[in-house]
């Protein structure tokens, strides 16, 4: 009996010695990943702006948006969104609302030399905390003023903490990007291959 017990204990210890490293081994994807801003390469979108004394029109991908009239009064609704634009200093202040609630507030400014355009967008998501998106664009052509072709060269988001988290768990993955305009998600993995670590 004692011998049998010793044998069992020995077997258990041997099993544990082999099993523990397996338990400790983690999926190499899992964990926090810190963004290295020095490696960032960004090729932003290009837009065309046609501005006059009454307001401006933005064209993206050859498709012109509705003209934004900047007289301080609410514009006609477009897809349920009411835009109110006012001239402010060297630019514009635009507020978009839906069902009486603010969606975002945008401040657009031109640099004194007319070569840079900055947009600061305060966004109020219906199901999240407000945050601020700031973009800078450089002039490719046109002018003076806002009219011309602009290329976005940088963007920052106030809630971007620079940390990506990934956790692969069987057939699903929890995923949170550094920019929290995209929430934590868990979704079924489509698996044509085995992931590293599985």
């Amino acid at each position, binding site marked *: 009996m004692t011998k049998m017990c010793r044998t069992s204990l020995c077997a258990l210890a041997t099993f544990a010695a082999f099993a523990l490293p397996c338990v400790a081994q983690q999926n190499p994807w899992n964990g926090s*990943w810190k*963004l*290295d*801003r020095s490696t*960032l390469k960004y090729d932003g979108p290009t837009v065309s702006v046609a501005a006059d004394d009454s307001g401006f029109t933005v064209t993206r*991908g050859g498709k012109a948006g509705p003209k934004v009239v900047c007289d301080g009064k609410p514009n006609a609704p477009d897809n349920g969104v009411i835009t109110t634009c006012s001239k402010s200093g060297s630019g514009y202040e635009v507020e978009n609302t839906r069902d009486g609630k603010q969606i975002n507030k945008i401040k657009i400014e031109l640099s004194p030399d007319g070569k840079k355009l900055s947009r600061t967008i305060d966004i109020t998501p219906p199901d999240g905390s407000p945050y601020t998106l700031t973009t800078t664009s450089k002039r490719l052509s046109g002018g003076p003023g806002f009219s011309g072709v602009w290329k976005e060269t940088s963007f920052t988001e106030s809630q971007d903490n620079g940390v990506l988290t990934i956790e692969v768990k069987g057939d699903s993955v929890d995923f949170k990007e550094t920019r929290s305009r995209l929430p934590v998600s868990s*979704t079924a993995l*489509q698996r044509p291959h085995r992931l590293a670590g599985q």
Partner: protein
Amino acid sequence: MSVKQDGPRTLKVTYSIDGKVARENTFVLSSDGKTVKETDITPAPSPSTMSVTFHKS
């Protein structure tokens, strides 16, 4: 949002709005497991691309 394995060290994340792809992110894990390179592609009408490297923390 959908996540697809596009190879043993690649995750492809697709964000769609009303059935149209709004953004496609590809994450590639380095062979030593110390870095992940992200490539972020936003298609027309406002196409843009972004790439950046993450280090394990």
